[in-house]
């Protein structure tokens, strides 16, 4: 292959299949197979929501041979009282998480950016990032150390102050607070760092000009930092809304130690699907998973559509 002939030849063959295309296809093949097995097969498997699926034997023969039952699984799902509790929990917690997940990280990112000592700011960031790297199983162990009935640190403090110990894992009224607190705790350092990255990328000449005009720190924050953050905030908000039908399974299942007393305050769609799958009530589980996938897809596409209208570069497609 001579080097002069190459560009000409390339142009001529642009529309034709080239040796390079074969090589690139080979290179992409393993990942493509992965996508087919672990992403696309389950997408077609979703039809079991409309079937009376049995768990015995091979999967494919089961899918083809099990009888169609239309929307029966969905009827069961929505006739149970649980469905509404679960949807309420899923959306309710997510709304609180979205609001706090924006206000607190933005607030602390602005504050940490104003600290005089860069070194201190780095140390705080590193320490606050730690919970993000803990798995929910570890967080559950931490929670147990604090909330266990007979050995927990909190109950020991209560007793030493003269009040009665509380059986925390049996008392639903405290848990919305605990779950929200833990979610904020785990994500705060991460969110803060994301917003801080945007703040530090703001051109410093804006601030210089503002100082020369006599603007106070508060005015600089209000009229420079916040407006510059607006786009990122809107983006994070919309992306979070797009995932409003999905919850963090570990938070709601592990941290509550799957306590039955907490069913009403801690069961979300993901938790219910998992529990029913494990107890082999496939019908309802597959219907709930179907609802989650379809509504989730609709909200993600809607969110993406809105992102594209605001800022085409940030959209997924």
């Amino acid at each position, binding site marked *: 292959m001579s080097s002069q002939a190459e560009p000409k030849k390339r142009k001529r063959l642009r529309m034709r299949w080239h040796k*390079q295309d074969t090589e690139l296809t080979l290179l992409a093949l*393993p990942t493509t197979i992965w996508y087919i097995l672990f*992403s696309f097969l389950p997408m077609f498997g*979703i039809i079991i929501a409309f079937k009376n699926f049995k768990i015995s034997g091979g999967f494919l023969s089961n899918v083809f041979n099990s009888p169609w039952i239309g929307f029966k699984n969905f009827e069961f799902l929505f006739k149970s009282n649980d469905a509404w509790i679960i949807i309420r929990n899923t959306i309710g917690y997510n709304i609180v998480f979205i609001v706090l997940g924006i206000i607190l990280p933005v607030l602390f990112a602005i504050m940490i950016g104003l600290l005089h000592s860069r070194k201190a700011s780095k140390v705080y960031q590193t320490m606050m990032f730690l919970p993000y790297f803990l798995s929910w199983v570890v967080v559950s162990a931490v929670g147990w150390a604090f909330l266990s009935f007979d050995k927990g640190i909190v109950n020991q403090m209560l007793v030493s102050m003269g009040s009665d110990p509380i059986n925390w894992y049996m008392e639903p009224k405290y848990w919305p607070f605990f779950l929200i607190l833990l979610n904020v705790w785990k994500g705060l350092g991460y969110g803060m760092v994301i917003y801080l990255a945007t703040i530090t990328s703001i051109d410093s000449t804006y601030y210089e000009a503002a100082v020369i005009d006599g603007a106070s720190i508060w005015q600089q924050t209000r009229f420079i930092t916040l407006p510059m953050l607006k786009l990122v905030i809107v983006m994070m908000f919309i992306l979070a809304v797009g995932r409003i039908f999905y919850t963090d399974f570990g938070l709601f299942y592990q941290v509550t130690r799957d306590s039955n007393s907490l069913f009403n305050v801690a069961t979300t769609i993901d938790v219910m699907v998992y529990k029913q799958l494990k107890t082999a009530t496939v019908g309802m589980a597959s219907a709930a998973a179907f609802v989650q996938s379809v509504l989730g897809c609709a909200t993600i596409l809607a969110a993406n559509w809105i992102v594209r209208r605001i800022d085409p570069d940030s959209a997924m497609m």
Partner: protein
Amino acid sequence: MTSKSTYQTGLEKFNRTNKAVNLLFNLIFILLALLCVIPVIVVLSISFSSEESIRETGYHLLPVAMSAEAYVYIIKQGTMILRALGVSALVTVVGTVLGVLLTASMGYVLSRPNYKLRGFLTWVVFIPMVFNGGLVSSYFINTNLLGLKDSIWALILPLAVSSFNVIICKTFFKSTIPDGLIESAEIDGASQLRIFFSIIMPISLPVIATIGLFLCFAYWNDWFQSMLYIDNQNLYSLQALLNSLMSNVDALAKNAASMGVSYAMLVATMPKESARMAVAILIVLPVAFAYPFFQKYFISGLTVGAVKG
């Protein structure tokens, strides 16, 4: 960050919060930082408490009676725990290498502008970002069709690729690798495979490190795959082991009982409570020591991901 820290003119000094506000902010952040670290310290202190003191007085912020019996137990008789450590390490290493290769190769292919199937493969990567089959159908396909039940591959394969990582790679290759470099290698007769392994991978270390880091943490911290697919205790990772110890702390004795000591005696004498927290420490310690060094890559990965290519 750099522009601000190097910018040490009078203006920087003049334009900042007054000392009282700075002090207040520092106090707030000290409090927050402690809240984020204390839980780990509590777990550490329980793991170093003597079993007797836990049984009699419960958990404490600092150990009432210091003892390393949990760790001695793990080293001497904790075959189950050491085995789980091995499973965790194996899954993390194999998963990260496999995941990086699968992710980077797809990212590279998608970054080649003249590739004929680029449009098609872009859809293959994109569709799973908005739609998925959900837990139930994934579960049945992985267990009934792919036979991953009670297989170590169930812990590795499902987590290997994420479209988010593929897009980070594609963006990086597209924006940092000059076309001329690849074209000249093509003219010299190098195959695409050779170009990918001998040119692209070595010069893309920043993005490879970032993706590798994401994968490392994801594999090390994963417990959900074990919960779904692993019943065989010999295949428990540290996370899965801790998970089972949370519901039944006596499980630790089961395995050791076969080694000559009676089960009842072991349950009575072994440091169960502290050993459980020592397992948590085995999980947390490597992460807590590693991530401050890699934080930079981590954050750069998170911000690169926000830029679409």
